[in-house]
């Protein structure tokens, strides 16, 4: 791929510009002439289309019916089921059998299919930017490797990220055996180093705490945004929500506390949240430890914090063995140690918290980037192979990294994108997307799933296993054979209980996981406490703003920076898209004289970045938060010019907090790109909350008579009547539903320019409501189309494109729509979206004038959903294609639809199962029962629209002693 290729969005906007300018007069005349000629020639004969059947159809294939294959995402390690239409993977679902998925995925995994078809992905093999072939590379590299092998690997170096594949780990091990002098380095920009080191202090070996939130009655999150973790977040969210289901009295409701700097999905989901800067969180941990006899006596320095501490300590003390204290990766190892000791003292360790060995032990034992740079400058590296990481982007000092690469004789980069590191290397080898490759990936709990390809490599990529086999001099190089060999050996070692290898292998591929591979937790036996030095145990208050870094929940370490769906997916609390910003508390914003969108300059560690600030209520005073993962350069383009990389601010890869940074206002202003602008909820009728005690006191549901309506009365007591209930107690605002909806319904990306005009296209949005306090209560409200029974959009449509069906769906008939937008104006929920441009057309072809072959991106489209053209209104219809498919299947079988048979895309993906969908005419259906819950309510019910989508109020289990703080949800409602 040439370097002048542009990003998808760039090309989108170019397509728009060319559309806006229109053809010249001469072209227009030519086109008119051609149109007349063609219309007279072609008459009304339908356009020619081909039917191309298989020569020999694969077994089990039914043309026109999707197949599902089990696989696994290498980033998350969570098992997935991939939907494939005639060989085109189009949608990812969670694998219900996989313990880290349980049928759900996070938002980012939904966008993995877009990467597969991404036109920006690098192709085949390049040498210094020029296209060459794999054969050339092998010929050149094999002799080089042979020379290294003769010197037992001296001069050969390999840099990888965390290795989650057992086959790859085995390959690297055997390479180290045959070439003991070869150096292997690890670089994981978002590392758990402090967590592992903390466990090593406490228990003598590195481990990662895995809280079982379904067993914990009291949870304290210390700067731990657990639900945004790619590897475990989905499972943690499910477990957490299992203790927050307000149904029939809600006997086992948990109580959750969060102490954090920035408002995160996890913190917002808790009953009580205390905003403290990073140093304050450390103090809080020490003070809490002191309550349980660990370390010297200490207190907090403010009254609210002291009261919070008292309450948390009392609750944890009252629930020994049934509570959990969870520390985030940003805390220092010493605090992790303290937290581990608290959990052991309370009897939580081993009951509500397991300590699991890390998936990649190499992260603790192998040298990192700094050592690699030193070795390169010392001339100890002749050949360096970089496996799918971008150290020039994520290194603390990019220029030093670049110089290090230059100091190496031959550098080989293996990755999906032509990123900054690839460009600095001599060879660029296209990696395979995981939907094209064989591999095996270990999840955080140890469960291994096999990654199997759904399509041939679309970009001529090569498997990482093949590349390492080449280096190791392995006779077997086919990735399938390598992965199969790993498991054949392992099954043979285990004995032949499970039948023949072939049978077991087939079952493993079918089920999507290898049974019995989960980790055995390590025994939480405390090592003696390190001697407490008084100044270390009580960090001093720092002057000035502390900067807290954290990974962006979607782009993570930047590996997904090229993904337009994720760039445009609103961030959980801030609703920002296409950019990162510095979050400041209202107090610090005022001190710096900065308001939303004002540019600030951050200077520390010899690096300077400039980015917009946003004043976030709920942000800790004294803490400025920044997200990593933005501003990565791919294929010559900085991925979204609005995002800024903050990696360069870090002195090393394990640093998450910066003190002493100089933050100043630049005077520039750039309006923030966000999909929501008002966060206050003056109208109490939106997004209500109810305290657990009040909920328990509620009697049976009393349905009010809805207001009189002039709209036609429909009889809907026969047949199916679709309805949806969204439980706001369970919703954590993660955005997975929005991403799933985008993937399922062919929802386009509009780009930052259009976002600035408030023209986002997501059919489903998650509204954030914050109480206008200094310590706001944040709640999330997913808003799909309400499918109003008295739908205001319908009578205003002049062409009857917006019509009701007999099952209560508010259909949008795209082929009828003429784009008056009256319906959008008349919709009180603002859930209708208009195609201002031909997003569905092929922007890349239009922009590049190559109408010869269809774009790869067309293969991504879900064939069961109409692709909408310019000038057409579109909206959520409860995934009518899924309803229709299930109904047709039931009709063919001659039976009625069962409850739960239809899952909308948002419902299927939801990690917390907050969304329930079904037939409200069936009194036994889950949705009917939820509609009878006393805390069920309709959004804007007073308007008389009688929405079919209704909500369960957020139930908050406030602690009585903290109830007057205002941010705890004790306010009376309903």
């Amino acid at each position, binding site marked *: 791929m040439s370097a002048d290729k542009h990003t998808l969005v760039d090309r989108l906007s170019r397509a728009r510009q060319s559309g806006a300018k229109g053809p010249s007069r001469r072209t227009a005349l030519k086109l008119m002439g051609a149109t007349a000629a063609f219309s007279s020639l072609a008459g009304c*004969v339908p356009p020619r289309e081909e039917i191309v059947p*298989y020569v020999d159809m694969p077994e089990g294939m*039914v*043309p*026109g019916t999707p197949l599902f294959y089990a696989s696994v995402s290498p980033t998350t390690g969570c098992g997935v089921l991939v939907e494939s239409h005639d060989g085109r993977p189009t949608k990812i679902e969670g694998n219900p059998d996989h313990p880290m998925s349980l049928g759900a995925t996070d938002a980012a995994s939904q966008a993995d299919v877009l990467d597969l078809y991404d036109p920006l992905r690098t192709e085949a093999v390049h040498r210094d930017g020029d296209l060459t072939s794999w054969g050339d590379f092998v010929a050149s590299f094999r002799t080089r490797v042979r020379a290294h092998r003769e010197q037992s690997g001296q001069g050969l170096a390999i840099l990888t990220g965390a290795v989650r594949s057992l086959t790859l780990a085995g390959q690297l091990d055997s390479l180290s055996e045959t070439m003991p002098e070869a150096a292997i380095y690890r670089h994981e920009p978002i590392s758990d180093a402090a967590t592992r080191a903390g466990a090593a202090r406490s228990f003598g070996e590195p481990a990662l705490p895995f809280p079982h939130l379904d067993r914990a009655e009291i949870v304290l999150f210390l700067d731990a945004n657990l639900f945004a973790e790619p590897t475990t977040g989905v499972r943690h969210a499910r477990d957490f929500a299992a203790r927050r289901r307000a149904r029939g009295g809600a006997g086992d409701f948990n109580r959750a506390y969060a102490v954090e700097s920035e408002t995160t999905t996890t913190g917002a989901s808790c009953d009580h949240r205390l905003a403290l800067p990073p140093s304050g969180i450390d103090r809080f941990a020490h003070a809490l430890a002191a309550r349980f006899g660990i370390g010297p006596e200490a207190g907090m320095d403010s009254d609210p914090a002291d009261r919070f501490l008292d309450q948390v300590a009392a609750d944890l003390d009252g629930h020994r063995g049934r509570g959990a204290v969870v520390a985030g990766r940003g805390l220092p190892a010493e605090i992790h140690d303290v937290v581990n000791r608290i959990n052991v003292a309370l009897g939580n360790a081993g009951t509500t918290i397991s300590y699991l060995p890390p998936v990649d032990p190499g992260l603790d034992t192998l040298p990192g980037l700094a050592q690699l740079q030193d070795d390169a400058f010392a001339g100890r590296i002749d050949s360096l192979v970089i496996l799918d990481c971008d150290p020039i982007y994520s290194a603390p000092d990019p220029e030093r990294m670049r110089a290090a690469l230059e100091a190496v004789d031959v550098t080989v980069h293996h990755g999906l994108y032509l990123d900054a590191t690839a460009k600095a290397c001599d060879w660029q080898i296209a990696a395979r997307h995981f939907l094209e490759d064989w591999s095996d990936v270990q999840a955080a709990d140890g469960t291994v799933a096999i990654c199997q390809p759904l399509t041939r490599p679309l970009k001529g990529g090569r498997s990482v296993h093949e590349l390492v086999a080449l280096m190791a001099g392995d006779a077997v190089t086919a990735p399938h054979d390598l992965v199969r060999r790993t498991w054949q050996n392992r099954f043979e070692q285990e004995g032949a209980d499970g039948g023949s290898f072939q049978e077991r292998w087939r079952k493993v591929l079918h089920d999507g996981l290898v049974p019995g591979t989960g980790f055995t937790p390590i025994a939480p036996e405390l090592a003696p406490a390190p001697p407490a030095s008084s100044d270390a145990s009580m960090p001093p208050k720092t002057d000035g703003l502390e900067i807290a870094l954290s990974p962006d929940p979607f782009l993570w370490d930047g590996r997904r920076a090229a993904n337009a769906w994720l760039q445009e997916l609103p961030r959980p609390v801030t609703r920002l898209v296409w950019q990162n910003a510095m979050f400041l508390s209202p107090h610090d914003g005022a001190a710096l004289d900065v308001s939303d969108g004002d540019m600030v300059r951050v200077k520390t560690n010899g690096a300077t970045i400039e980015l917009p600030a946003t004043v976030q209520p709920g942000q800790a005073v004294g803490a400025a938060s920044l997200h990593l993962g933005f501003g990565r350069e791919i294929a010559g383009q900085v991925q979204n010019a609005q995002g800024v990389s903050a990696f360069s601010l870090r002195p090393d890869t394990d640093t998450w907090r910066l003190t002493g940074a100089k933050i100043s206002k630049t005077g520039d202003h750039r309006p923030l790109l966000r999909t929501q602008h008002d966060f206050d909820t003056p109208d109490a009728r939106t997004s209500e909350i109810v305290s657990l005690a009040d909920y328990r006191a509620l009697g049976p549901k009393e349905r009010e008579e809805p207001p009189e309506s002039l709209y036609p009365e429909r009889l809907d007591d026969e047949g199916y009547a679709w309805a949806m209930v969204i439980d706001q107690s369970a919703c954590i605002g993660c955005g997975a539903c929005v991403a799933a909806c985008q993937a399922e319904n062919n929802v386009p990306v509009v780009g930052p320019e259009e976002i600035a005009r408030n023209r986002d296209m997501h059919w489903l949005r998650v509204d954030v409501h914050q109480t206008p306090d200094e310590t706001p209560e944040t709640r999330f409200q997913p808003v799909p189309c309400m499918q109003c029974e008295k739908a205001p959009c319908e009578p205003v449509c002049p062409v009857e494109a917006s019509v009701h069906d007999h099952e209560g769906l508010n*259909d949008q008939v795209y082929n009828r729509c003429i784009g008056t937008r009256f319906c959008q104006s008349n919709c009180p929920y603002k859930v209708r979206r208009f195609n201002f441009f031909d997003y569905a057309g092929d922007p890349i072809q239009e922009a590049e004038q190559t109408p010869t072959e269809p774009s790869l991106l067309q293969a991504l489209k879900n064939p069961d959903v109409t692709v909408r053209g310019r000038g057409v209104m579109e909206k959520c219809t409860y995934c009518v294609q899924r309803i*229709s498919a299930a109904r047709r299947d039931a009709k*063919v079988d001659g039976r009625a639809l069962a409850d739960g048979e239809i899952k909308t895309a948002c419902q299927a993906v939801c990690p917390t199962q907050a969304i329930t969908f079904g037939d409200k005419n069936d009194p036994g259906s889950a949705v009917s029962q939820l509609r009878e819950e006393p805390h069920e309510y309709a959004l804007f019910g007073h308007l008389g629209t009688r929405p079919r989508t209704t909500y369960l109020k957020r139930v908050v289990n406030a602690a009585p002693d903290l109830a007057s703080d205002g941010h705890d949800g004790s306010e009376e409602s309903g």
Partner: protein
Amino acid sequence: MPQIFSPKADGLARLTIWGVAIAVVVALGVTFLLMRSPYATAVGLVRDQPVPFSHKHHVGGLGLDCRYCHASVETSAFAGVPETEVCMTCHSQLWTDADVLEPVRESWATGAPIRWQRVNSLPDYAYFDHSVHVAKGVPCEACHGRVDQMPLTRKAEPLTMSFCVDCHRDPAKRLRPKSAVFAMGWSTKKSRAELGHYLMKANGIQTETLTDCSTCHR
């Protein structure tokens, strides 16, 4: 003062007024007829195919069942066009030298698929499902005509929205017992109306939801 309008002017004016009115009506009529004519609906359309496959020979003559080649018609939205392998089950034994079958043999030998030209097509925003129609007793013949009498496959019905909706409003007159769905030229000695009424009930067909927009458009 001389006359501005000659005596003929009045007649001319009347002629013009009537003429325009008639022209509008005629134009509308012609358009309407044209829209329903085979010219617009392409009924009778035959495409050049790589192999001049004769349904008349295979169905009418040899009596092959539709499902032998269109295997997924009962299970999928798409009825399925036979893979080369299906052709070769017979044609590796029969007519092994026939010139017209050269593309089939070539496809089998090279692995390159045969590229058939579509005859019956629906717009992309209309979603049709063969399996449910077949399961409910809508015969192949209702949309594809007497395929057993077609030496070359041609489009038998207009397949316009009004064609679909006519049947969705009142399917009874086209329904057949399940055993006769794949039959060509089937007729019954019973009362057609009674049979239709019975089949509507037996198959649980409710016409009110059949004309919902979401039945075919999503």
